[in-house]
């Protein structure tokens, strides 16, 4: 009788799924391709998380510890699933480290890949040292100092460009990455906290700080931290010739072209489908939706389902997702997977 759920991916969603499986009295086997658990918040060195304001290393660290200390959970790091045989109720996974895992059901918590700003060369990433991504500035904030990489000076003026790698048909990314607006508003406040003299501007098409993020992040950054929101989709980032960057675009609210000098330009990068999704699709036999994320099963009665029976998914594997919702979905997917095992127990009598 199968008493094990295979959890693929050790980020917030996978850690949550694994913990839910073991708390229900079953066994979880976690397979993580990187050498550490924690997923994007840990691997990319996020600073304070939205919306809790807790440091990523502490908050996600607790999730990692919970699974690593769990005698019912087995963790394979630096390994991938190479082959999945069998069917719902009786899967056999072969890992790249040579191990095999018997599992009744599978949870895919395979997450996303950060958009690579190199794919939008007109915005200067890779050309100018002082053009950074939100993940890089997260690391800067975590280290406690905001400085221009080119010469180490504290920037007088920073701008954050929203929708980099999101909502852009030119590069085949037709989705909204959901969380970048809130992350950027939060980052504007973090920059201001570290360097009160720095003026922070956010260039936006729309501000999508949904739900309770509205006043907690958007309004707060504007009203208490004096972040300026300018409605313009930037066309180009160039050099001013005197060490600063020029941000060109059209301010659509005054209907005028703008060419504004900045010391630092930050790309609020979006969430791409996990770059491994074609491989994941093949190995697990699950479908991908049109953007390249995992395809959902019928949502209303087969929550957390994929196109293959017995294989569930959660979090950013399905599409851009917040950390909190990834954790909630992970718990739900863990529950669904356990229900499969339980059904097997009943069937066996």
């Amino acid at each position: 009788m199968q008493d094990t759920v295979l959890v693929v991916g050790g980020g917030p969603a996978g850690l949550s799924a694994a913990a839910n499986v073991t708390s229900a009295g079953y066994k979880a086997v976690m397979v993580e391709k990187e050498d550490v658990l924690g997923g994007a918040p840990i691997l990319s060195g996020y600073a304070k998380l939205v919306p809790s304001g807790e440091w990523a290393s502490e908050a996600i660290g607790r999730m990692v510890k919970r699974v690593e200390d769990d005698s019912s959970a087995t963790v394979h790091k630096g390994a991938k699933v190479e082959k999945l045989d069998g069917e719902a109720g009786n899967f056999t996974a072969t890992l790249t480290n040579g191990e095999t895992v018997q599992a009744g059901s599978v949870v895919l918590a395979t997450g996303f890949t950060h958009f690579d700003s190199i794919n939008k060369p007109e915005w200067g990433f890779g050309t100018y040292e002082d053009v950074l991504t939100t993940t890089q500035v997260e690391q800067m904030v975590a280290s406690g100092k905001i400085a221009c990489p080119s010469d180490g000076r504290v920037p007088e003026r920073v701008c954050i460009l929203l929708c980099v790698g999101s909502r852009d048909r030119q590069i085949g990314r037709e989705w909204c990455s959901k969380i970048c607006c809130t992350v950027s508003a939060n980052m504007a406040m973090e920059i201001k906290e570290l360097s009160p003299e720095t003026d922070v501007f956010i260039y936006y098409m729309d501000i999508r700080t949904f739900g309770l993020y509205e006043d907690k992040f958007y309004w707060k950054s504007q009203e208490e931290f004096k972040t300026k929101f300018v409605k313009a989709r930037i066309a180009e980032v160039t050099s001013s010739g005197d060490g600063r960057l020029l941000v060109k675009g059209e301010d659509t609210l005054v209907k005028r072209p703008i060419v504004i000098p900045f010391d630092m330009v930050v790309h609020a990068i979006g969430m791409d489908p996990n770059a491994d999704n074609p491989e994941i699709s093949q190995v697990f036999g699950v479908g991908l939706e049109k953007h390249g994320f995992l395809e959902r099963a019928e949502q209303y009665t087969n929550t957390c389902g994929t196109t293959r029976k017995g294989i569930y998914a959660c979090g950013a594997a399905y599409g851009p997702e917040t950390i909190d919702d990834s954790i909630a979905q992970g718990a739900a997917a863990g529950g669904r997977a356990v229900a499969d095992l339980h059904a097997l127990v009943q069937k066996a009598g």
Partner: protein
Amino acid sequence: MAIHEKALIEDERLQQHDELVVDGVDVSGHWNTMIAPRTVRDYDDDFEKKIQGFVGGENVHRCWQCGSCTNSCTMYAQNVQFNPRYWIYLTRLGMKEELVKDKDIIWQCVSCNKCTNICPKDVKPEGVMKALAHWMEEEGITEKAPSTIFDEEFADQIYKTGRIEDSKVMQNFFKKTGQPLVQDWMKTFVFRMMKHIPVKHLMAMGFNTVHTPRTKSWGKTGEVLKNYVREQKEAAHG
């Protein structure tokens, strides 16, 4: 529906040349009209703070440009160039030159406060209109309002003597605002006063008009008061 598109080519940006050489090519007579670009080259990061120093402008930084103020505006219904949403944006980014272009209409706000009631972010746009009008007056961008001239005359007399002399305030106010010194309502006023007020009181008034005596023990109070007002102004507006 009203269109509030501004004319994209303002007169001052039209540059006409009788003779013109561009990159060594003589284009006189053919391409002799150029239009200076409208590109915004920089923001004035301190201007918003300046306007926040005027009464009414305190919440201007809260604006998110929804346009509720302009839509509800009494004056916008009269003149589509009257656009509080736009001026608030200019204030936030410090685009002073654009604001000055509308100096002859910003003061026309009638303080109906429909914008204040509708604003979802509690920006108090009516207050911002007043703050902008005061800033322009203070900078000498617009002429002093009659009420300001009156206030100055009033304060001047207080500084000098510790009291005001009504008739002198009125006379000087009329002089400075180019109004006739004797007006019909005054004739009626004086006539009725002579009819109803005791002669002694009238004489005392006449005496005071001529001699403008100081309030008892006024001393240096006027100077001190004047300095205090100047300090307060400086503290508020830099």
